[in-house]
């Protein structure tokens, strides 16, 4: 029996009729959305245009960004400490850090914010000293806890719990052989953490942290309940006067989208930096990241 002589060069491509159907449906939906946006007068695009770069909105954006940066910084520093604590050999530290994460992840951040804001009901005075012993410094809680501080405490301490879990996961994903090799070379614990373990953990820490920053940006809008003039509170205070609720909420959405887009671009650059040596190929290019192309799967070296 002889096999037929075939050359697959120039073979016809497989057809995908379902892809065509799906694309047409999506295009129709998109056209409808655009027509809704353009023809419905209730969007009041002229009002949006007037407020979108108003100075007062700018102040709100500044507060939102400031709060995001500070609360995130508090969260990251706290997260590293808590993650190291949870991975430490000291059972007391492990338990304490675990308890912290359990509490702050297990209660709504809105409740935590309001609690910090109303701390004076619980502790009219805050003092530092020896328990049951002499006090060194004391202050009136109402003076000490401004809305800004309450917001930083509420968002930052809560973020610490989430970052702790992200960082702990990243640290645990680094092969134990790395620490052993560093130990065998006589590299000390702190240097091993900083030079060997943390940079490798970063590949696993950065993507979820990027999501956390974006969540934080939006979570800062919760502080409008404690009368801190962030972006959302600012547009609310305007539409409470003018009743132009929808266009002002659109202004807020536009700015939240602009900022998250910038953050997204920044994240992709940081990810590329920490991808050094992770695959046999060159790191993924920025354009393929933007166009959602999949990373080439790393080859397993022999």
């Amino acid at each position, binding site marked *: 029996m002889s096999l037929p002589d075939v050359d697959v060069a120039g073979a016809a491509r497989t057809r995908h009729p379902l892809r065509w159907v799906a694309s047409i449906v999506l295009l129709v939906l998109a056209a409808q959305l655009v027509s809704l946006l353009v023809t419905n007068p209730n969007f009041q695009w002229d009002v949006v245009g007037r407020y979108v770069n108003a100075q007062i909105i700018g102040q709100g954006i500044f507060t939102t960004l400031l709060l995001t940066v500070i609360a995130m910084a508090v969260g990251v520093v706290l997260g590293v400490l808590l993650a190291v604590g949870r991975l430490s050999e000291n059972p007391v530290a492990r338990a304490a850090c675990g308890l912290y994460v359990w509490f702050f992840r297990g209660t709504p951040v809105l409740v935590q914010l309001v609690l910090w804001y109303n701390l004076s009901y619980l502790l009219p005075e805050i003092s530092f000293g020896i328990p049951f012993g002499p006090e060194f410094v004391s202050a009136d809680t109402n003076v000490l806890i401004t809305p800004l501080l309450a917001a930083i405490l509420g968002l930052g301490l809560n973020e610490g719990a989430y970052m702790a879990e992200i960082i702990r996961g990243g640290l645990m994903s680094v*092969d134990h*052989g*790395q620490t*052993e*090799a*560093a*130990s*065998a*070379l*006589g*590299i*000390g*614990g702190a*240097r091993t953490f900083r*030079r*060997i373990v943390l*940079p*490798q953990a970063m590949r696993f820490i950065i993507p979820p942290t990027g999501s956390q920053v974006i969540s934080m940006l939006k979570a800062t809008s919760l502080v409008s309940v404690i009368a801190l003039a962030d972006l959302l509170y600012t547009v609310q205070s305007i539409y409470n006067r003018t009743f132009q609720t929808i266009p002002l909420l659109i202004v807020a959405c536009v700015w939240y989208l602009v900022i998250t887009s910038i953050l997204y671009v920044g994240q992709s650059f940081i990810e590329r930096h*920490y991808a*050094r*040596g*992770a*695959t*046999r190929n060159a790191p993924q290019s920025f354009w393929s990241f933007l166009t959602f192309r999949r990373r080439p799967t*790393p*080859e397993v*070296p*022999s």
Partner: protein
Amino acid sequence: MTIPMVRARGVRKHFGHLEVLKGIDLEVRQGEVVVVLGPSGSGKSTFLRCVNHLETIDGGSIHVDGELIGFEASGGRVRHLRRREITRQRREIGMVFQQFNLFPHFTVVQNVIEAPVGVRGEPRGQARERAHALLRRVGLEEKADAYPRQLSGGQQQRVAIARALAMRPKLMLFDEPTSALDPELVGEVLAVMKGLAEDGLTMIVVTHEVGFAREVADRVVFMDDGVVVESGAPADVLDRPASPRTKAFLSRVL
């Protein structure tokens, strides 16, 4: 009489209820190459890891170049060393692992200079020069700027050897350095190790490569079930084993 490079006396180690080392006695002279053979699970890796205190021993003692490893004995009392002092002791002992354990985010040359620059404070330029010389010695100078993942297993293991040598160790420990390699890559790593032996480096090598043991080792030690069963010249242990356990093992690996 010169002091031995390694003197292990009655070394004991257990993990939970599992007694892994049941009193290991072993001496390695300066410049000697000792190959440790033994079935899987007999405690060979554990013993090597005790020598540089990656594992803390439960009894007995290990001296390297006259210095008690991991502990301090004075006035009849023994105490655990602090971590910083243990770290200092490890700088004198190089170790090569079965899985290479190169730092994947560093290039080859960065892998080699990390410890000399970072912990010995060697100037970077000088460390790079030495690193290139070491890489030439293991035949990989042209790979200095590659990342470990871009290298074959045999090349990675040779970089790992260069990285360990960069600390100028008095003693090198090899834990099955060729066991993770494709058969055709084993030879290049063994050749580098043979070169080190000829240069007079003191080495303890755990391996199943009986050919290497026969050709390079000054002494072969057979371990089984946490004890040293026999020890002697390669020809004696490999060709005329005294113990039936050694005989049984050799008939399986040869």
